[in-house]
């Protein structure tokens, strides 16, 4: 076998015992982490695929049913609705988040104390949990006693005692506002890292050539930012497809099951109805979608990249 790249070129002494020592040490140091991932990731992954082929109640007999769970899953109205709602939520929240995060990143991009302060400030909600944030916003938007509801009433935006969570659209809007507040700082930080990696001279050169701010952004900054945008987009879409806490807590899936997400339906099927085989099948389908979405987005954004980059 040829020696692995990166090791050679005189970095390590050429004596074989030392090389063997490096290999042994490398294997030993990585073993504990790899063991954890094997036991708590790969074993469940294989188990899940195995479960999808069975009628698998929590207690009682397991029966091999072949691909029947997959047919049942695709025929399941509740699951189909949950998937549709999850896509709807993802389609609305993703662009809102991305545009706002990009705007914030451009705003706090300069160096200096003020920029640092705002970077820190916008990032703050990221460290607050999604669950805690959901409870906080649930309260803010309560009719009668919620301060935001009260303020909206006073400003004449809503009629008295609007119940934000009684209507699917307004419930969805409140949830998206909460998630945006909570997540936008993280996306801003990722984009900021991408922006800071762009050499200043490139943008200056464009400006010298007479491009205005908008043209510079459109033709220079955004194309160079493409890899970071792709990364943020993948994180954002994956996060939305996995939404659970915010709907479980703020809407409880209501009104009339209109805000049940895919993960919420997995939870209900597996842990309320205890149909573990069907729940695992939902999970497997969700996993396939997640992997496909990540792969597709990365592919699209890579392939549309201008090939003439230095």
């Amino acid at each position, binding site marked *: 076998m040829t020696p692995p790249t990166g090791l050679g070129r005189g970095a390590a002494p050429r004596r074989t015992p030392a090389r063997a020592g490096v290999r042994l040490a*490398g294997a030993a140091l990585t073993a504990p982490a790899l063991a954890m991932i094997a036991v708590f990731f790969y074993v469940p992954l294989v188990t899940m695929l195995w479960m999808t082929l069975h009628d698998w109640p929590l207690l009682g007999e397991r029966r091999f049913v072949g691909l029947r769970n997959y047919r049942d899953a695709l025929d399941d109205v509740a699951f189909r609705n949950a998937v549709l709602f999850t896509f709807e939520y993802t389609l609305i929240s993703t662009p809102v988040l991305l545009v706002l995060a990009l705007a914030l990143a451009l705003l706090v991009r300069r160096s200096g104390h003020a920029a640092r302060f705002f970077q820190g400030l916008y990032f703050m909600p990221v460290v*607050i949990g*999604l669950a*805690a944030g959901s*409870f906080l916003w649930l*309260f803010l938007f309560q009719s009668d006693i*919620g301060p935001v509801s009260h303020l909206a009433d006073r400003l004449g935006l809503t009629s008295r005692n609007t119940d934000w969570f009684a209507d699917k659209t307004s419930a969805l809007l409140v949830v998206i506002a909460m998630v945006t507040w909570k997540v936008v700082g993280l996306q801003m930080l990722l984009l900021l890292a991408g922006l800071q990696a762009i050499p200043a001279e490139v943008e200056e050169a464009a400006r010298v050539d007479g491009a205005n701010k908008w043209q510079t952004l459109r033709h220079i900054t955004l194309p160079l930012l493409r890899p970071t945008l792709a990364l943020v987009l993948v994180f954002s879409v994956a996060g939305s497809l996995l939404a659970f806490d915010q709907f479980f807590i703020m809407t409880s899936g209501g009104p009339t099951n209109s805000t049940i997400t895919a993960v919420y339906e997995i939870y209900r099927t597996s842990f309320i109805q205890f149909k573990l085989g069907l729940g695992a099948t939902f*999970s497997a389908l969700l996993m396939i979608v997640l992997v496909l979405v990540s792969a597709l987005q990365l592919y699209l954004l890579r392939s549309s990249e201008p090939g003439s980059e230095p």
Partner: protein
Amino acid sequence: MITYSFKSPSEAVAAPPTLYPHDPSLEHYRALAGNGGIDVLDNVRNSVVVSLGTTLATLVLSILAGYGFARLRFPGSNVLFFATLVTFMVPFQALVTPLYLLLDEFGLLNSLLGLTLVYTTFQLPFGLFLMRNSFAAVPRSLEEAARIDGCGHLQTLVRVMLPVAVPGVIATGLLAYFTAWNEFFAALIFVNEQERFTLPVTLSVIAAGALGSRNWGVLQAGVTVTIIPCVIIYVLLEKYYVGGLLSTLKK
């Protein structure tokens, strides 16, 4: 939220809401601390145990393996590193059903250890990635000098590499801590006994009205208790956290 938690029970549900507590009261916190049938102090302790455990385990495992992957190439290391990165694509929400059965098999349902192990596993890919990048940025000459002075791999790691990679270590640790402290879905499913709940799940119990009707004042006190430690840690370490993440992500 904080002001609400200090209001008296009647004022907390007043409509229209008052701007600040006219009659400050610790009643909601007393209710949290056991007067209302829930002893949240237990849950605070659970959250601390799980979060610190996750942080410590993630740090130790990611530092060892990050160094291994960054500098000590061995046959198959690229394939194995890729195998850890695959976990990025399949988050634990998609594996929750088989994980439940696995923990059941190990007798780790309703246990803080089980929760810690799951959190650690799913923190590892990012921790590994961060630590590998941090170590890869350390000049090789530093390591070689240590090697010539007779340091073994572990000694080199602890004495030479770690001090240089501190920003990455802090970022990895804080991320693990915040994630474990705030996680809701796994905690909701893998733990069914009230005395083992972590704080976010406890909030949902309070919200469900375990204290009679839904008590907004107590809930706000609970939310405050859940959020404040994160905000304090963040404000104290913001420089390292945001800076550490930024510098690692830029590579």
